[in-house]
């Protein structure tokens, strides 16, 4: 197997395909705190994501992701692991993923699954595919946080 061919086999390893097929978190969320749709206009990947928070942490997430295997695997991973994360935890996880992609760092101990994206480090054009669901969730958490704070302010004014 040539170097390029083995690189592609690593890029599309079984873990990536398994997560993409499992599509954890697929669907829509009733009463979501925020709804976000992000596109990668160059390739057509699209993540439509809904999230609800409880005390600043992700209580539930649902997404409908249209895109390549890498994008779908990343969205599925978040569908499985995002519940319980707060904005800070999500930012740290996203930074760890960026470091894997850009500096070939090892995955953090509490997110070993991020290691399945390590072969994408050799393909800069695919980094946005992996990161798109993380960007969508970060935006969703910010929006849900802001909506929650606005509702809290309104409640306080009423009392």
């Amino acid at each position, binding site marked *: 197997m040539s170097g390029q*061919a083995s690189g592609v086999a690593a*890029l599309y390893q079984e873990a990536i395909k398994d997560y993409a097929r499992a599509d954890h978190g697929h669907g829509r969320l009733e009463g979501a705190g925020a709804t976000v749709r992000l596109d990668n206009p160059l*390739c*057509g990947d699209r993540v439509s994501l809904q999230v609800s928070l409880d005390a600043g942490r992700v209580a539930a997430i649902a997404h409908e992701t249209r895109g*390549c295997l*890498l994008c779908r695997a990343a969205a599925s991973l978040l569908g499985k692991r995002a519940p319980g994360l707060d904005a800070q935890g999500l930012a740290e996880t996203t930074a760890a993923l960026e470091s894997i992609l850009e500096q070939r760092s090892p995955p953090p101990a509490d997110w070993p699954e991020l290691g399945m994206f390590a072969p994408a480090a050799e393909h800069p054009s*695919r980094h946005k595919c992996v990161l798109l669901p993380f960007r969508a969730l970060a935006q969703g958490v910010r929006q849900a946080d802001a909506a929650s704070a606005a509702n809290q302010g309104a409640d306080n004014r009423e009392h």
Partner: protein
Amino acid sequence: MFACSVPRHLPCVRPSCRFDIAGLHPHDICQVLDAQGLALRGGHHCAQPLLAALGVESCTRASLALYNDEADVVALLAGIENAIGVLK
């Protein structure tokens, strides 16, 4: 065998062919083909409105030029079979 669709109702005015393989994204197909030395383009092709009108989200496109010959087409077909094996 995977379903592969080619729009047969459109007039062929250029030596290029766009196709879809059910369940596989064009960028993944192109990535695997690229590793085999096959240069195709995948995605919107800067023609989102046309693809939307055709009911297609994105597609893969093979374009032939004067320097391509039958061996290149045979290699492409073998490459597509391999891509299906890698991605499924």
